[in-house]
């Protein structure tokens, strides 16, 4: 039987964007256009995890699901180039700049139900813009599916999923049954680079686009639990003392002396 995996993927501001390039305009975080968006790094790892399952089991279909108000197609199609089979974009202005992700969770959940035969949802552990780590948990609760988080390895054996979960000092092996939601962490390893064949293949695949009206969501704005008051860049007010020396080694010695002088060591 075919195993159908949905991978959720979010298009985000590149987290490697230098701090100074983050701008706040009208209570919205932006960067200048010279910084292209990326797929959330952990979501690329989620794609990688799905591809590894596909390599292990063979009969696996991978559908990538993304929710947003607008997409850079060359960016969001990267999972297809990596080897995913389908791409569904939930694209609607209603998803623009939401602080409270409840609507996004409803939309993704409805889409998963609409797809119908999904066995496994794999998501990145959190998105690098809001760092919420809420969406996969919300999908699991709405679908009433079990969850395993922060995975570094996923094994699907029949109807059972075995996951290695990263812990602060080691890891644990947890087990659950399909259908389930699993979130992955960077300890899984780097996502693969798309090869030429993958890139060519991805060009031919057109994403399916669903708008909010296609999803049959009942949602009232009164359900919102978070209202944004303001966004601010944290103020750093430290004065840095650069230790000078005749050469680098001398600066190292002077650093030790200076720390002793200040009774820090």
């Amino acid at each position, binding site marked *: 039987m075919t195993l159908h995996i949905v991978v959720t993927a979010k298009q985000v*501001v590149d*987290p490697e964007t230098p*701090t100074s390039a*983050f701008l706040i305009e009208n209570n919205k975080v932006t960067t200048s256009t010279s910084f292209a968006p990326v797929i959330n790094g952990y979501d690329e790892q989620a794609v990688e995890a799905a591809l590894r399952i596909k390599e292990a089991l063979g009969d696996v279909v991978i559908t990538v699901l993304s929710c947003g108000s607008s997409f850079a197609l060359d960016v969001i199609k990267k999972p297809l180039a990596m080897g995913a089979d389908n791409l569904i974009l939930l694209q609607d202005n209603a998803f623009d700049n939401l*602080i409270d992700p409840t609507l996004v969770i409803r939309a993704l959940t409805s889409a998963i139900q609409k797809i119908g035969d999904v066995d496994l949802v794999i998501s990145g*552990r*959190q998105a*690098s*813009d*809001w*760092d*919420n*780590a*809420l969406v996969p*948990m919300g999908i*699991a*609760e709405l679908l009433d599916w*079990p*969850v395993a988080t922060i995975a570094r390895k996923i094994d699907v054996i029949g109807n059972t999923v075995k996951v290695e979960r990263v*812990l602060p*000092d*080691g*890891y*644990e*092996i*947890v*087990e*659950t*049954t399909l259908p*389930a939601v699993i979130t992955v962490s*960077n*300890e899984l390893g*780097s996502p693969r680079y798309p090869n030429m064949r993958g890139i060519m293949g991805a060009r031919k695949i057109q994403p399916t686009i669903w708008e909010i009206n296609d999803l049959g969501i009942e949602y009232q704005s009164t359900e919102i*639990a*978070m209202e*944004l*008051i*303001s*966004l*601010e860049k*944290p103020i*750093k007010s*430290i004065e*840095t*003392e*650069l*230790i000078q020396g005749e050469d*680098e*080694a001398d*600066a*190292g*010695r002077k*650093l*030790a*002396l*200076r*720390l*002793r002088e200040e009774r*820090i*060591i």
Partner: protein
Amino acid sequence: MTKALVIGEMLNGELGAATFEGIAAARILDCSNVAVMIAGASIELAAEQAIFAGADQVFTISQGPAADGEFDDLINASYKIAKEIEPEIIIGSKTIIGRDVMPRLAFRLGTILVPDCMSLERDAEQRIIVTRPTYGGNVNARIACVGQPVVISLRPKSIDAMGLDQSRSGAINEIEFTSNIRTRIIEKIEEKSEGISLQDAKTVVAGGRGLGGPEAFDSLQELAGILGGAVGASRAACDAGWVPSSFQVGLTGKTVSPDLYIAIGISGASQHMAGCSNAKTLVAINKDEGANIFKEARFGVKGDWEKVIPAFIEQLHELIN
């Protein structure tokens, strides 16, 4: 009367910092009744501690899967308590437990978690206002929590615990709920490094991609040895496999707050700083003068670590023996 429910945690058989911080947060918000849930084997003493720390009522789970740390039952238990006492606010922590339990508890209660709060207050209309970092720490958001109930998680170590008051008293009750485990822990594999733990160390010597390979971490071990500290790392160094992921400091690694943090070959990305910016004194050694770490450090040396560190170690030997 405003009620709060704190989803407390045990740590190594004792009441964990998450519990103390959660109770303190409830008091900051002027909650007049603070209930705490804790789970673990032999927790009578911890329950009493929670009362001394400011709780009015403690719900305990002293046996079964929840006491063993199974998330599914921690959620089932906390959901039951929340339904029973109907708190205005539920407070947890962004720990390894809270990361799983808090969002799912909130969804089950029909609302959504406001995660990773660093500070909280009430506005003129008595709404709960929190400040939380976003974009890896590049931007702080002030958010009015308007859910019913309000469910938040605190960033560990961002709220000060209150002192213990041994004269306080309160009810301690074991709770009953229906167990339902769907994701089960099969085995835990500990990879604890020897010596002082990263989180407790007064000095942390951390290395990043700039160290160029695993061998350099030997020098960092030596340095940590002299200073009586522990070794940490950036995610880049962990991802490269130079040190285990348990060394990672940062947003998705460990939060440390030592007296002294020495960052070597680390650029100072906001996600890294999220784990170490509470250090009393931060020292940066980096060959790039423009590195962000210099904007956050009290002392800096611009230079190649291969030249700076041996001389630094040599001088320390002279000073410290």
